[in-house]
């Protein structure tokens, strides 16, 4: 029993990380219909800049946190303004390549700024690991869960209650129709990129204490985050959290009960299963193909 609980806790810890990243994907997809392959790099930038600001310059935790999110959101802004908007015919393949190019560029810059080695950060709270029936849970993962839930609720309110939220969703459905109604769709997309980059950086900040952050941690995390978003249903925020948790627990169980070699394969196997069985994901709405 103790093993099962420990696998569950480890699954929850990783799951919370995937959930935060998946939220970034879903957030951007909801607002622009795009999938940003550089989302993983925003997580990396968040983790590394947090370490520099908090551990390096000894800034207080909240200040370092807000500054990091602001910086990475700015990077997201620049990416959209310089790379995405200037594209004349935004064909999916073209956008995929541009975001992949952006992820390589960001990785190169991070390598110059933070060097090639890994960096670690102390956890937010000094609490000892919580012991439940022999299995231990890091307080940091509770931090992540808490923040993830806060983000999702914030998003729901943003999309349901605020005008900008609804306007952003309108832009995703049809940019032309939205701009005809006077919605500044260009600025909406800009805001969406900034928000999703900020969310990615929050993910990075939260996982910095748990893992070792290095300039090339972004790619694998990005891919796993996308699998989680797909599992939950691209476009639904609760789906992203649910998908992330499921993926984390599935991976931990695969390692626990089968063999740890299969760990990465699980994420992609689940992705393929979902793509074949239910492309709209577990919680996503089934897209009706009007002819």
């Amino acid at each position, binding site marked *: 029993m103790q093993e099962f609980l420990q696998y569950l806790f480890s699954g929850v810890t990783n799951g919370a990380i995937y959930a935060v990243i998946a939220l970034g994907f879903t957030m951007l997809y909801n607002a622009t219909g795009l*999938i940003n392959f550089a989302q993983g790099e925003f997580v990396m930038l968040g983790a590394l800049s947090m370490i520099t600001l908090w551990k390096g310059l000894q800034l207080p935790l909240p200040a370092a946190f807000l500054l990091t999110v602001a910086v990475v959101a700015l990077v997201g802004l620049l990416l959209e303004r310089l*790379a995405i908007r*200037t*594209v*004349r*015919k935004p*064909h*999916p*393949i*073209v956008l*995929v*390549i*541009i975001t*992949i*190019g*952006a*992820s*390589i*560029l*960001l*990785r*190169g*810059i991070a*390598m*110059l700024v933070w060097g090639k080695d890994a960096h670690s950060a102390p956890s937010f709270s000094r609490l000892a690991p919580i012991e439940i029936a022999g299995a231990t849970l890091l307080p940091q993962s509770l931090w992540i869960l808490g923040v993830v839930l806060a983000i999702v609720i914030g998003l729901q309110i943003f999309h349901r209650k605020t005008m900008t939220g609804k306007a952003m969703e309108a832009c995703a459905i049809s940019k032309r129709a939205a701009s005809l109604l006077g919605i500044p769709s260009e600025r909406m997309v800009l805001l969406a990129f900034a928000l999703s980059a900020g969310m990615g950086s929050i993910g990075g900040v939260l996982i910095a204490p748990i893992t070792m952050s290095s300039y090339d941690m972004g*790619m694998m995390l990005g*891919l796993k985050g*996308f*699998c989680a978003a*797909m599992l939950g249903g691209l476009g639904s925020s609760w789906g992203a959290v649910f998908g992330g948790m499921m993926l984390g627990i599935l991976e931990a169980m695969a390692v626990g009960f089968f063999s740890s*070699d*299969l760990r*990465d*394969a699980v994420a*992609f*196997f689940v*992705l*393929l299963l979902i*793509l*074949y069985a239910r*492309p709209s994901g577990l919680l996503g709405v089934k897209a009706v193909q009007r*002819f």
Partner: protein
Amino acid sequence: MRKLKYGFFLLVIMAAGLGITNSYYLQLLTFIGINTLLALGLNMLMGYAGQISLGHAAFYGLGAYTTAILTTALNWSPWLALPAAIVLVSLVAFLVALPMLKLSGYYLGMGTLGFGMITFILIRQWSTVTGGDSGLVGVPSLALGPLSLASGKAYFYLVWVVVLISFIVCERLVDSRVGRALRAIHDGEQVAAAMGIDTSRLKIGVFVLSAIFASVAGFLYVHLVSFISPNSCDFLVSVRLVTMVVIGGMASIWGSLLGASLLTILPESLHVFSDYEMIVYGLILMIIMIFLPQGLTRGLLDLYERSAAVYPRKVKSREPADE
């Protein structure tokens, strides 16, 4: 007209083979040839049929590993391992394509990416047979009967003759009923179906064809370097393949040659940037995609046409329907 083009191409191969003696440049051109094969296959799938694949290095790896394992563990002759590799890769491609090609756009991209990652992980984990991460050593070199192809020059000719043949195959395919159907699928799949085209059968066909091209390229690579390891067929290699196609020019056969040459020479000449290599590579990708989305070939041709105004567009009048 087409014969002249192939004749000219054959001439260039001969000239390069005789002219260049330095084995580094010969090997570089041979690698360009292998990458052109890969880019050509993927171009048929992405450029003509409009189906994106982010995991195509998996077929390159499968082709290479199949012949490597057959020629080292079971010491088959390479010329027997080649058809075996092609058959195996076509089977895998067919089984993957059946469910996969129902998807489109991002979903198809991610599905092929997932397949590529799973293949990479399986190759790496099955270390007893594939040699795992430290790779497979001692793959024999090729020989045509008595004539050994191990030397740089002989292999250069072999690779580029194969490239020429595949150019001919691709150009014939594109100018045929099948080629038109593929382009129709790219322009509008439902409309193509409404014209009586069995879209799923054709998409699977072109997917298997491009997998075969990749497996032949893998075969040629492993018998040249006589070594293969998982990280020459991982996700980043798939990204480089897609970039070759997209930069060279989608739906342009000669664009694949241009894209493959650029992407093979670039990392070599980027050595001078050392630490800045990644930044330069990322920037080049983005800049070309933003300003020349239809790729360099079309971009250069348009530039040439617009500047020389050589080809004004004539619009003739339309006669009424005759009785």
